């Protein structure tokens, strides 16, 4: 058992343990902090696979952006120290059963499937320059059109957020 194997298992344990605690913790603020640990574990998995750029984006957008947004909305909407209402017992039982059945089915399919790696010629390293060139190229394997569509989506989402969350003055 080599060191990288042990590191993989530690990262997977951080990710899954954080996720389980995030969906079961009765206090909402602790739940957000456990989600933070889970997302950092996922960024560690990307580092383990040598995708440094994706790991950096994961840390910046998820850990620095989305979790902070969630924590602010917790502060704006309710007391962070109080317990939430317990989930309905029968619903929790059936949800656990459904998740377990789905997991077993997917596990069975993964074990049965044979994957064939496609080793073609070409540069094997993932450099940021290569990602940038292919993302903004208009040739056959370029991703310029989805890039522009995502930029339009982000702009419209930003305007939509402002319009929805703005405080309208009540008419007297």
């Amino acid at each position, binding site marked *: 058992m080599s060191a990288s194997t042990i590191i993989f298992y530690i990262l997977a344990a951080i990710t899954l343990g954080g996720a389980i605690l*995030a969906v*079961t913790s009765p206090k909402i603020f602790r739940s957000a902090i456990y989600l933070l640990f*889970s997302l950092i574990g996922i960024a560690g998995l990307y580092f*383990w*696979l040598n995708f440094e750029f994706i790991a950096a984006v994961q840390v910046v957008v998820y850990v620095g952006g989305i979790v902070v947004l*969630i924590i602010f909305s917790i502060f704006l909407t309710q007391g962070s120290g109080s317990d939430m209402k317990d*989930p309905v017992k029968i619903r929790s039982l059936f*949800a656990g059963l459904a998740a377990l059945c789905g997991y077993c089915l997917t596990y069975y399919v993964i074990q049965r499937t044979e994957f*064939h790696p496609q080793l073609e010629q070409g540069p094997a390293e993932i450099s940021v320059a290569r990602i940038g060139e292919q993302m903004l190229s208009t040739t056959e394997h370029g991703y310029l059109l989805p890039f522009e569509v995502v930029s339009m989506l982000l702009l419209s989402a930003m305007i939509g957020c402002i319009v929805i969350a703005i405080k309208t003055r009540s008419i007297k």
Partner: protein
Amino acid sequence: MSDIGLGHFLIVSTMLFFIGIYGFMTRRNMITMLMSVELILNACNINFIAFNKFLFPNQLDGVFFTLFVIAIAAAEAAVAIAIIINLYRNRKSIDAEDADMMRL
């Protein structure tokens, strides 16, 4: 990366996905449901990256799909939180059962 293969990553992402499904079905608070959705999207991202690494190591398509999923998840979280804050202003509660203003 000696004995860790594609199957290990797929199993981790499957477990993360179904943990998210469990949380989405059991939680009653809208913010925690949103957190479960983030877990589900992250499981999908792990799948894209693992397939790119182990099956197509010379191409970059998994990286692009992951970047787009992250961008769309950020937009979705922002819009959802705006809706939740507006709902809290009107109802003083963010339980999913209290959001019945569109019912006839």
